[in-house]
Every structure is written in structure tokens, then in C-alpha cells.
């Protein structure tokens, strides 16, 4: 999998959020996007997910312009600004609801993912009873459960206790070895410093690659 971001600019009214961004992202690597809140990280992630159209430029998935084709990128899962789960379903039922859309996995895979994010014990609790950290874990579980090729994580370690965060970092390293393309956006550099292969800094619409 190769994602090419070519001359991408995104404006909201007259406000330039991203200015002529160019980068190539490839399988088997972890990419870190860092920058303060509002620096355009989430906007770029949403464009990669084909949720927004760039004002100019293009984003290609293995050469295919997904946005132009009115489709969404295949085998890509994301958590951006927290998902909207149904409050009166349990954690497991919420995952099942999402899994039912593509019907790729069953109960077994869902339970394995819940174990991975240390949420298995609370799988039968209603989402409305979840703490902030548990909600974040469920958000991550919906990303991992279908074994996607591209993993997009916006502030993934927010509210997650150290034990789970360490486990997830190891998991992401393993996924990278399996050839997954992983993008992690955060405003805390230390969150991703040791994890990523390439690091990009977002500032005032411009993106610069940082030396590791």
C-alpha cells in the first residue's frame, strides 16, 4: 500500500489549514504527525480517509484517487476525534454493530481485540457507563478488530493507562512488521518519538519532516 499526497491544500473559507502538502506514505512503516491542536493534523487524516475533499491537489491510494471516485479507502480504519458509539449498547455490541457492516469478522475476533485493549472485563457494560479511558479503548478496538492494512490514529493514547499504552505500542510495532501502514497524530512528541519511522511537524499549514 502506498499513499501519495500531492500538492494538497485545504482551505476553510479563507483560512488555509494545509498549504501545498506533499508526502508519500508506505506499508511497513509508522508515521508520526505532531503539532499543536488546530495545526491541521486531523484535517489531513480526514482527507486521507476521504472524508474531506482537498481544495486543490490529490491523494492517491496505490495510484487510485479515492475521493474523485466517490469511494472510501479499502481496508483502512481510523479513530479521529473519538467515535460516536451508541450509549445504551454494551462495548461488545457496539463493535458488533460496526463489524456487521462489512461482515469480515465474528464474535471471536471482537473478543480478541477487546482483550488486546484490556477492555474484555468491561465488554458487557453499557457504553454510557464507560469512563473516558474505556471509551478511548473501545475506539481503538474498532480500529484494530478487522485487521486493516492502514491504521490511522488521532491522539490514540489519550486517557489510556500506561500498562495498556505500552501493550498497544508493542502491538503497533508488530503490525508494522506485518506490513501495515500506520499513522499516529499527537500533540505530544514523546508519545510517538520512539515508535515512529518518520516524523512530520505540522505548523501553520506547513509540514516539515523532522530528523529522527
Amino acid at each position, binding site marked *: 500500500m502506498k499513499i501519495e499526497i500531492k500538492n494538497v491544500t485545504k482551505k476553510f473559507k479563507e483560512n488555509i489549514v494545509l498549504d501545498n502538502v506533499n508526502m508519500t506514505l508506505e506499508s511497513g512503516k509508522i508515521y508520526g504527525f505532531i503539532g499543536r491542536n488546530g495545526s491541521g493534523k486531523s484535517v489531513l487524516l*480526514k482527507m486521507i*480517509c*476521504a*472524508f*474531506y*475533499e482537498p481544495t486543490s491537489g490529490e491523494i492517491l491510494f496505490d495510484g487510485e484517487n479515492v475521493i474523485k*471516485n*466517490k*469511494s*472510501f*479507502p479499502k481496508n*483502512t*480504519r*481510523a*479513530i*479521529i*476525534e473519538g*467515535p*460516536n*458509539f*451508541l*450509549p*445504551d*449498547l454494551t462495548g461488545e*455490541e457496539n463493535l*458488533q*454493530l*460496526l463489524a456487521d*457492516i*462489512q461482515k469480515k469478522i465474528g464474535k471471536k475476533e471482537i473478543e480478541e481485540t477487546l482483550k488486546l485493549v484490556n477492555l474484555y472485563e468491561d465488554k458487557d457494560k453499557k457504553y454510557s457507563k464507560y469512563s473516558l479511558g474505556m471509551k478511548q479503548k473501545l*475506539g481503538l478496538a*474498532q*480500529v484494530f478488530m478487522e485487521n486493516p492494512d492502514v491504521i490511522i490514529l488521532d491522539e490514540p493514547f489519550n486517557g489510556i493507562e500506561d500498562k495498556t499504552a505500552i501493550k498497544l505500542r508493542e502491538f503497533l510495532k508488530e503490525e508494522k512488521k506485518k506490513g501495515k501502514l500506520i499513522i499516529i497524530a499527537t500533540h505530544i512528541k514523546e508519545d510517538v518519538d520512539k515508535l515512529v519511522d518518520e516524523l512530520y511537524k505540522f505548523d501553520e499549514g506547513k509540514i516539515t519532516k523532522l530528523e529522527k
Partner: protein
Amino acid sequence: MKNKIRNFFSELNFFVSSEKFLLIFLFIIINNVYGATALLFPEDSYIDSLFSFFTWSYYLLILQLCIFISVNTTINQFEKNGALIIRFKNHKEYLKELFKRVVRNTLFVFIVNLIVALLILNLIRFYNIGIGTMDMYNISNVLYLIFYIIRTCVIILLNALVFLYIMKNTNKNIGIVLCLFYLVGNIFSFREPLYIFYSEYFNILICGTFIEEVIRSIIFIGVFGVILKIVHEYTIKHMKKLVD
């Protein structure tokens, strides 16, 4: 099947627990109480009163305003759910799911409004149901009432879809203005012989027979549906904003 039913009600509950639904419910209560106190005459029967409610322009305006708020809330809730959206193959699947949610929530608001209207009328008109013959067509007025409520519901559903397509094809502020213009403009449209405005179908049409009115209604709904199908296809190709 059991899971599907549970998910259906959970999604509906998510809509109902939004603050906007509280506003909708408040409008429904005020609209029906005001209708009952300002519109009805003491001699009106239960069935006559229901007709008076649903043929009153201002009552319909508020009801459709509730539908507009409902559509807007449905779109907002849907657009916040990136985890769901990224699982769709394409924009066609995206709009199909949003369409289903708009239909479900609109139907729900319409049914809630109908129940509130029936309950209020039950309190003030319980002594005079008024079952009889509808003189104009010489058929049972209950039969006509059932037909009339179904037609009103279908047209309100089609209008909800108009709101959906306007909102998905324009930016938010322009969309709101266009939807309100569409609402107000048609509610106060003049009566004309071809019955081309949807608001005509919130009245008893003046036709020779009941069958003629049914056929005219089916033709209108059919043409409206075909136009919306074309707009639906256009929307799939042209909508730009998929998430909030």
C-alpha cells in the same frame, strides 16, 4: 433478527436522547395544545378535529419545522460517526444509510405527533367520535381519515428527503435558508387546478370521486419520488462534506 431490532431501537434512542429532540417534543406539545384551544369549535367531533389539525397551515408549518430539526439532527449525528462512515464502500452506501436514518427518524417524529394529537383530542372530544359518512364522496369518514393520514405522512417523508438533499448539496447556512424557504413557500402556496404543490395534498382535494383523489395523490407522490430519485443520484456524485 433480535440483534437488528435491538440495534434499531438503540439508534432511535440515540436520536431521542439528543437535546434537539427535546426541542422537537416541546414544539409538538405546544403545537397540539395551541391547535386544540385556538382552532376547534365545541361542536366539532373527534374526527373533524383531527382534520382541522392536519389541514391547518400553521400546524403543518410547525410540524414540518420539527421534521426539519429532526433531519438536521440526524445528519449531524451521522456526520460525527467517522468509525461508521469509513466502513462504507462508497458514497452510494453512505447516502443509503443516511437516507434510512432520515426516514426512520421522520416517521418516528410523525408518529409521536400523531399520538400527542390523538391523546389531546381524547381528552377534549371523547364524547363525540363523529364516525359517519363523508358527504363529498359518500364513503366512511374513517376510511378517508386513514387515507388522509397516510398521504400526509408520505408527503412529510418526501419533504424530509428534500431537506436531506438540500443540506447535503449546499453548505449549512445556505441549506437552512433554502429549507425554510421551501417550507414556508409551499405552505402558503395558492390553490391551483393541477395540484402541483405538495401543500395541496394536506387538504381534501376537490375531485369527482374518492378514487380520483387516490389516483391524483398516487401520481403526485410517484412524480415527487422520481424527482427525488434523480436528486439522490446527483447528491451521490456531488456531495462534498461527509463528516463534521
